[in-house]
């Protein structure tokens, strides 16, 4: 697998340096690495990656796995994308903001807050994004327990009331 030299190299460095915080690290294919990392070491790993040239945070994808919520940080050096996956319990979902390392993350983090209801610690206050003002409080539409029909019904009723 000589064509995966660079991928193996960076993965080994992360594993050696942060062995206690890294799980399920795989090279999916050329230019794609997936790693599960622990929340409390997340920022340290990102800082290290940034020093190694992985300066570009493409986006953050939230997800709902049932018992746990989480986020995937897609970080790239133009060529290789490293996908860092972080999980947090659904009862009290909290993630630390990555703004100290990636200052471009504001909108992406607000999205996670709005759509998944994960509290982002350290995100400066601002207007919500992307849900509109006046969207029902405590409803996070991308969670799996929010069903489309119920959501539509609730929003229709809300509109009817306002009219």
């Amino acid at each position: 697998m000589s064509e995966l030299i660079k991928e193996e190299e960076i993965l080994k460095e992360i594993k050696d340096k942060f062995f206690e915080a890294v799980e399920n690290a795989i090279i999916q294919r050329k230019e794609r690495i997936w790693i599960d990392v622990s929340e409390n070491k997340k920022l340290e790993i990102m800082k290290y990656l940034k020093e190694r040239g992985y300066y570009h945070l493409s986006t953050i994808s939230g997800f709902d796995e049932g018992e746990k919520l989480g986020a995937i940080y897609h970080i790239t050096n133009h060529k290789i994308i490293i996908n860092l996956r972080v999980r947090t319990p659904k009862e009290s979902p909290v993630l630390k903001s990555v703004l100290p390392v990636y200052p471009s993350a504001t909108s992406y983090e607000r999205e996670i807050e709005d759509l998944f209801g994960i509290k982002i610690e350290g995100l400066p206050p601002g207007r919500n994004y992307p849900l509109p003002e006046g969207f029902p409080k405590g409803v996070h539409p991308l969670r799996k327990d929010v069903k489309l029909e119920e959501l539509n019904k609730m929003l229709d009723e809300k509109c009817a009331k306002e009219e």
Partner: protein
Amino acid sequence: MSKIQIPLGPQHPALKEPENFALVLDGEMIVDATVNIGYNHRGVEKALENRNYIQDIYLIERICGICSHSHVSCYINAVEEIAKVDVPQRAKAIRTIVGELERIHSHLLWLGVAAFELGYDTLFMYTWRDREQVLDCLELLTGNRVNYGINTIGGVRRDITKEQADEILKKIKYLHERTSYYVGVVTEEPTFLARTQNVGKLPKNVALELNAVGPTARASGIEIDVRKDNPYFIYDQLDFKVITYNSEDVFGRAVVRVLEIIESIKMIEQILKNLPEGPVSVKVGWKIGPGEAVSRYEAPRGEDIHYVKANGTEYPERVKVRAPTLANFQSLPYCLKNGYLADAIITIAAIDPCMSCTDRAIVYDIKKGKKEVFDWEELRKYSIEFYRRKGIKFS
């Protein structure tokens, strides 16, 4: 002098992405700017989870009218990676042609819009007239001027005939001539230079730090282009340059875009003269996965990224979309700061934000506590008048 705050936008219901800018002014200089977005959330990501993979293609195509092919291609690359589909070369070539035609039409559209915002209406009329040629090519190939519906999982839905290829080559040749003329206009026309040089500065280190993408980043000297970095379709077999420029301003963004049109034209010629033979699609089952994939695509505005998670059913578990405009909004406040109010419109237009923005602006004078309402049109006139007073002649 007291500071004045001007909210620009967000009402513009005809367009896709209404946005609001709070500009704080000291005299005529912008000293602070914040971008507020999210006025038109349609719940596309939730809707995607409730439709099957084929239905999703047509919904994703409608995320954006201008770069509809980009979003579908990005999504389809991820789905095909999960389903381990081997897409025929001819299908990949046709996807590439449509992608590059889309880039030409988007960049010509941008050049026209930018010229219009500058008060240079002749260029606006010229570019939009010539853009019809690209739209004709797209209609010829796909049957549609926008939302082409060419992609399907496993290939494309229509083949290219010899006659179509010849017709496109003819139109492309005309466009090549016209674009060479626009390169001259953009780089030599005094009106254009006076309004764009040293406007909306974005130094390279700031662009890197704030993760700018596409022509915005390339005009700050960053060589970032997914077509070269993570080649998809048949870009690894094509001969093309990544256009960069080091002026770090609106002028550079215009130069990058016009030169990119020429590169796109060359690519289309290369492909049409050497179109691979064979089928244009393969059959793929309704059920995909399980698995996950992340896919990047160089849309006309920059890096588009989709994350798809499949659970083995007909419906995706999760689809995440990040359009290039959102990435470029992070650096926009920086570009606006320390510029003139008169330059705000072209600076915003220079990242090519799907040209949604603003229809209305409220001027708030803190000292008098008085509000005045301006619309985009009046602000545009103000900016043209501002430069006329400085001695720039508009023909």
